């Protein structure tokens, strides 16, 4: 028993150790990897991904999954850009309303996801995948396939203004992470996510309204996808359907690699931070070392399989679908 506890403790730190080993490895191959400028670069690519992955974390903690991020991020990015440009084009005046606007759009899409999943009793991966396709189509319809440029200097300062050589968006993402941490650990709804993920039967038997909690989880995920979308727009200054491309694979990988179990009930947003950093360090490191960046998908694929394999509690599992 004691042995098992020790193993569990070690297992908990594995993702962090992997991150450390990766950093040391890339630093050994190319010392430039360790420069502050490169770390800032990693922070910029990690910030939007972190928000999206944190959103996905809540859903995965419940044992469900959300695969709608490509569509949701695209719609939120487009909604944000359109609102911002419609409201004067600057965050300084009425334009800041575009941020809550995007968050509402994300929340609504999340609610639709959750309601389809819970009310129609469809497995969440399929409900959200379908809604992801709908979202991509919706964003294409809204933009007509065009790009929307954002020139607002105040908004772009998220990328351009640096404090201690890290851009503002990194701090914004960190703030988002702290909020998520608060929700996860200090609110009833956060504890309920763990309760459902740990054992839905038990949660239901203790009188928890499981369906309601699930829908709230999806809404929360949608809101964080919207934050990710805003940061993604800030990064490139462009909002388009493509803004969402790649987020599905990236964020699911991050969550899983960070050590949050797909079966639900264990892990959390700090794991996701480590996971996002692992994924982005690999992406950045491969470029620094001189490998083509498109090999990333393959490496991440192998990583996901390994991580799920290692994290899965197979004692009570007779087969996987």
């Amino acid at each position: 028993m004691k042995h098992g506890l020790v193993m569990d403790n070690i297992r908990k730190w594995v993702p962090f150790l992997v991150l450390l080993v990766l950093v040391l490895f890339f630093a050994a191959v190319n010392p430039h990897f360790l420069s502050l400028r490169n770390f800032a670069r990693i922070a910029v690519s990690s910030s939007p991904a972190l928000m999206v992955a944190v959103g996905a974390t809540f859903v995965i903690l419940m044992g469900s999954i959300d695969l709608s991020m490509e569509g949701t991020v695209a719609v939120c990015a487009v909604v944000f850009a359109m609102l911002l440009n419609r409201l004067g084009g600057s965050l300084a005046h009425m334009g800041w309303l575009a941020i809550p606007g995007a968050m509402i759009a994300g929340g609504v899409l999340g609610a639709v996801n959750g309601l389809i999943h819970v009310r129609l009793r469809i497995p969440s991966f399929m409900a959200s995948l379908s809604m992801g396709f709908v979202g991509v189509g919706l964003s294409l319809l809204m933009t007509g396939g065009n790009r929307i440029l954002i020139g607002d200097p105040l908004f772009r300062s998220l990328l351009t203004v640096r404090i201690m050589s890290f851009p503002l968006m990194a701090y914004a993402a960190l703030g988002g992470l702290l909020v998520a941490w608060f929700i996860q650990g200090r609110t009833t709804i956060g504890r309920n996510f763990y309760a459902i993920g740990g054992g839905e039967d038990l949660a239901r038997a203790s009188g928890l309204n499981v369906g309601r909690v699930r829908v709230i989880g999806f809404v929360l995920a949608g809101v964080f996808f919207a934050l990710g979308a805003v940061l993604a727009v800030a990064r490139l200054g462009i909002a388009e359907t493509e803004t969402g491309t790649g987020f599905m694979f990236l964020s699911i990988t991050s969550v899983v690699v960070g050590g949050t179990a797909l079966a639900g009930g264990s892990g959390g947003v700090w794991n996701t931070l480590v996971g996002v950093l692992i994924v982005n360090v690999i992406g950045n490191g491969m470029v620094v070392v001189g490998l083509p960046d498109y090999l990333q998908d393959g490496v991440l694929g192998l990583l996901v399989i390994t991580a799920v394999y290692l994290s899965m509690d197979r004692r009570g599992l007779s087969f996987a679908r």
Partner: protein
Amino acid sequence: MTDRVALAERLRRHFPWITLTTLTILVGFTDVNFLRPDNLLNLAADIVPLLIMAIGMTLVIYIGSIDLSSQSIANMATVLATIALPSAGVGAGVLVLAVGLAFGAVSGVVTTRLKVPSFISTLAVGGIALSVGQFASGQQALHMDAGQRLHAFGWMVGRTAGIPHELVVALLLVVVAWFIQGRMTAGRTFKAIGAGEPVAVSSGIRVERYKILAFALSGMFAAAAGLVFSVKLSGGSPTLAEGFLLPAIVAVLVGGTPLTGGVGGVINTVIGTMIVAVIRASMLYLNIPAMGQQIFFGLVLIVAIATTIDRSKMRIVK
């Protein structure tokens, strides 16, 4: 009460082809030209790659799993087929099918032996296939040499007595899949797994082996879809088959194979694919833009899943 349930069940089984006929007649009303045989043949020839992919996907959904890697494997297949054509000729086709089979088998092994849910394992294997496709192509669109293409795969394109050859190819593949499903031990086992995996395990069936086979076949059919598509377009690129995944899944589900597996099958998917084709064509007639299609098919998918899924198999819906 039970009579009514039985009637509903029986009606549900006939629902796909009734939908198809109704839709076809409806579109025929808006434009009579739609019903002309040569138009219908063209329509059918156009969806051959989609049909082949959907057939493979059917086998995996039939056992209650899902394959999200099909599109990436087809993408990779278009690239590999184009690259291998000059040196291997027809062998390029065999090579591509073998690679598809191998990738599918990997998904199967990861799902069954490592017990990773299939939507994650196939997503990951799809990521690997995407990388291979991009690596092999150098992220460019490649073109087939016209002479070599004609020499090796000329039999795949063109027409005999007005029948497009792709249709014959597709028909052959459908027959093969139908034979596997209905007349071989493997197919019967697939049904047993889809109907109730624990029972199949308890009866001493080597379930893992057959599940791996189903995934491998799905990978091979996805590669075949990519092959046909690349021959058709005379080239390959790592994004050529983009946009196939959604209609392929829709075709399987609309055809009447539920996400929980066990019923439906290859012939259902043929009907499902035709429904997808007719819907697409009707959208052209109604001037609905391409992006509208994606929204529509996404919603159709939700409705199709919700109406066909067997909830008695899922105590907890995750």
